[in-house]
């Protein structure tokens, strides 16, 4: 049975890999997008798989904190499925990028150049949430599996579940904001956050139900919960229809109407019937996401798109089965593997011992308060720093848009701090080596992002050609020395003439006295006697010791230079007069 399933998933994965490879090579042109739809199927699949990734945490963490009793292997299986679905989900937004190697620029992390991601963008929120959620899910699964054997792990199990509870809902809420916070008419909707959560939980439950069928047992409560989900999804679809005027009948049939066959006892009591009901939910939800991303219909689904769907299911199946078999001892504990258990009846909440705690005294709260405090503190510090960066660089932002970043930061930091004590005091050699390896990996990644890649030089050749200024206004005798035209000409004069003639128009003493014949003293009288045209001629064609500048200076600029020299001579005479007057005044 397992072998057949494995081969089926491999058969899905291999053509899926081919189409994934083609998509990576070809870029976004590979899958179906049109002039109005920029995103295409990978994003539908992302939303679909991240939705499935909610079931595990929902069933395990949320039910745990709400004291709904659940069999250990159901919840661990669901968590494992969460992780596998999360891996699949994380691939799609990465591969849909146009420039995949730039993906790290989405992280809200200042690099050494001081450039920073735009923290007001829903995609950045997404990135942070998925990262934090992935981290916490891994930690939670490890803690859960170890909690049978180790008391330390067991002690942080429930507190971690409390941390995951808001986080899992936050993730899908933020995914919904990718759509709700845009100007696409088909995506508008302030109800999207809850709508997406309901959809995610609903499809996740369907997946878990299929999985339980595969394991050979069932949980009636989960099936009922799935049905309640289908009603709510229907209500949301109708509300969407009421607001925007288009209803997806196919989705309604698959995700809402067909699951109602569960009420037929023949369907409900056969494994195949339950699998079919849950599969219809999955198909409906997948279609719902496809129609969501393609409001205009796109340009049809091509072979690459089908391949990507196969890739998702194939990859999920393969990694899930491998992990399931490798971890079977940890998952099953003393229970029977794949036994045909008719009903693993969850204990009713009534049988749970009810314990009353005065406010702020529960053991979970005691375990969580210090990590949470640190989390909130680091979140506040981060936000202050971000606001500072944004203001320093003059980037417009709104305060509301910083809120979605808070939960992943608080939760990730708190989760990390919560695990710190077992990590520091109770880690063995293998764990230690793994930890060091992870630390090195993290350091390398952070350093690479911080350092950033040097850009490729253009390689254009720098040589001696090229004009300095296009001259569109020449100075004349009335120009003041700080007018734009004069300053432009002055720059050319200082580059070309000042070497001998001096920046002040008289002499460059150091150079001329030592090496060169002294150039003509160009006082005002002499310049006026020679006239502008003949001086321009000298500049362009040279004279005794002066080199010709034709070809290096435009005739236009040569005239400008002559006028500039005249201005210099004028100011020199004015200085002279003033100096004389000063001497006279001094006597």
């Amino acid at each position, binding site marked *: 049975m397992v072998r057949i399933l494995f081969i089926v998933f491999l058969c899905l994965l291999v053509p899926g890999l081919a189409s994934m490879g083609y998509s990576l090579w070809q870029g976004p042109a590979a899958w179906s997008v049109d002039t109005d739809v920029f995103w295409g199927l990978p994003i539908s699949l992302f939303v679909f798989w991240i939705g499935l990734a909610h079931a595990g945490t929902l069933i395990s963490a949320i039910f745990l904190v709400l004291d709904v009793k659940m069999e250990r292997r159901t919840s661990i299986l669901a968590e494992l499925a969460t992780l596998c679905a999360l891996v699949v989900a994380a691939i799609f937004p990465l591969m849909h990028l146009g420039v995949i190697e730039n993906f790290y620029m989405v992280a809200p992390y200042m690099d050494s150049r001081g450039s920073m991601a735009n923290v007001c963008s829903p995609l950045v929120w997404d990135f942070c949430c998925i990262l934090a959620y992935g981290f916490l899910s891994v930690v939670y699964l490890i803690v859960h599996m170890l909690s049978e054997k180790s008391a330390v792990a067991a002690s942080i199990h429930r507190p971690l579940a409390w941390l995951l509870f808001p986080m899992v809902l936050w993730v899908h809420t933020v995914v919904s904001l990718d759509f709700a916070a845009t100007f696409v008419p088909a995506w508008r909707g302030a109800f999207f956050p809850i709508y997406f959560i309901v959809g995610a939980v609903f499809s996740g439950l369907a997946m878990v139900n299929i999985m339980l069928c595969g394991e050979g047992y069932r949980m009636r409560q989960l099936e009922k919960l799935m049905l309640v989900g289908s009603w709510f999804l229907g209500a949301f679809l109708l509300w969407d229809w009421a607001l925007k005027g288009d209803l997806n009948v196919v989705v309604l049939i698959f995700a809402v109407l067909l699951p109602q066959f569960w009420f037929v006892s023949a369907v409900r009591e056969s494994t195949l019937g339950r699998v079919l009901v849950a599969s219809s939910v999955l198909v409906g939800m997948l279609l719902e996401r496809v129609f969501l991303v393609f409001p205009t219909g796109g340009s049809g689904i091509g072979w690459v798109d089908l391949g990507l769907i196969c890739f998702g299911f194939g990859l999920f199946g393969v990694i899930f089965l491998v992990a399931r078999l490798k971890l079977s001892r940890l998952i099953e504990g003393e229970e029977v593997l794949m036994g045909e258990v008719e009903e693993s009846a969850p204990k009713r909440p009534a049988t749970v011992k009810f314990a009353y705690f005065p406010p702020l005294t529960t053991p979970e709260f005691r375990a969580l308060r210090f990590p949470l405090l640190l989390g909130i503190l680091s979140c506040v510090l981060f936000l202050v720093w971000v606001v500072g960066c944004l203001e320093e660089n003059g980037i417009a932002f709104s305060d509301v848009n910083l809120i979605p970043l808070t939960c992943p930061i608080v939760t990730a930091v708190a989760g990390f701090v919560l695990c710190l004590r077992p990590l520091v005091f109770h880690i063995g050699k293998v764990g230690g080596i793994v930890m060091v390896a992870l630390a090195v990996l993290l350091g390398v990644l952070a350093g690479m992002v911080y350092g950033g890649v040097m850009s490729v030089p*253009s390689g254009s050749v720098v040589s001696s050609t090229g004009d300095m200024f296009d001259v569109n206004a020449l100075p004349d005798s009335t120009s003041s020395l700080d007018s734009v035209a004069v300053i432009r000409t002055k720059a050319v004069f200082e580059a070309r003439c000042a070497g001998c003639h001096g920046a002040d128009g008289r002499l460059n003493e150091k150079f001329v006295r030592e*090496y060169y014949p002294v150039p003509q003293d160009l006082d005002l009288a002499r310049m006026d006697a020679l006239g502008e045209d003949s001086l321009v001629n000298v500049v362009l064609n040279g004279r005794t010791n002066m080199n010709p500048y034709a070809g290096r200076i435009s005739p236009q600029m040569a005239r400008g230079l002559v006028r500039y020299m005249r201005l210099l001579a004028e100011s020199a005479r004015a200085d002279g007069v003033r100096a004389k007057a000063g001497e006279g005044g001094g006597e």
Partner: protein
Amino acid sequence: MKWSLVAIVALLCAFFLADLLMNRVAEPTRRGDGAAVPFVHAMHGDSIGLPCSACHTGAFAAARAYLPSKADCMDCHRLPLTEGAGIEALDSALAKAPGHPWSRKSSLPEHVVFHHGVHHSAGVACADCHGTGYAKDVYGGERFDMRTCLDCHRGKTFRDKNFKAAVYCAACHR
């Protein structure tokens, strides 16, 4: 406990190593020996009262600083200047040199705008960015990266000179 400390140290080392490797200067240091015309910066600069723009004609006014053409050299070198030992070798090398004896590939990426003139007008001295290596004819070892640019544009590098300039992306990128 031991492992945690090792992990923290490893993390820090990995971070700085990765940063160092990623952010290394694009071009290695090189000496200007191979050019057709032997040239010594020390003999052409302040000692004879010439500004950089006398040879790098665009340095104070244009986007590019430019390298001198043969004609630029000959403005002065058409006359025998000194009785130095190497002057004859120099004169013959100059006579044989092509019209544009020097050229180099720009290390400025295509999407970056850099204007020498505007920096000069703002009071940035050549040596503020180019250092003083050129006086010994060592070129290319300077750190021309965006980090250095931005630090100065934010006013962090030369506090006494109070340089502060535009830091929005499109000021320097296209």
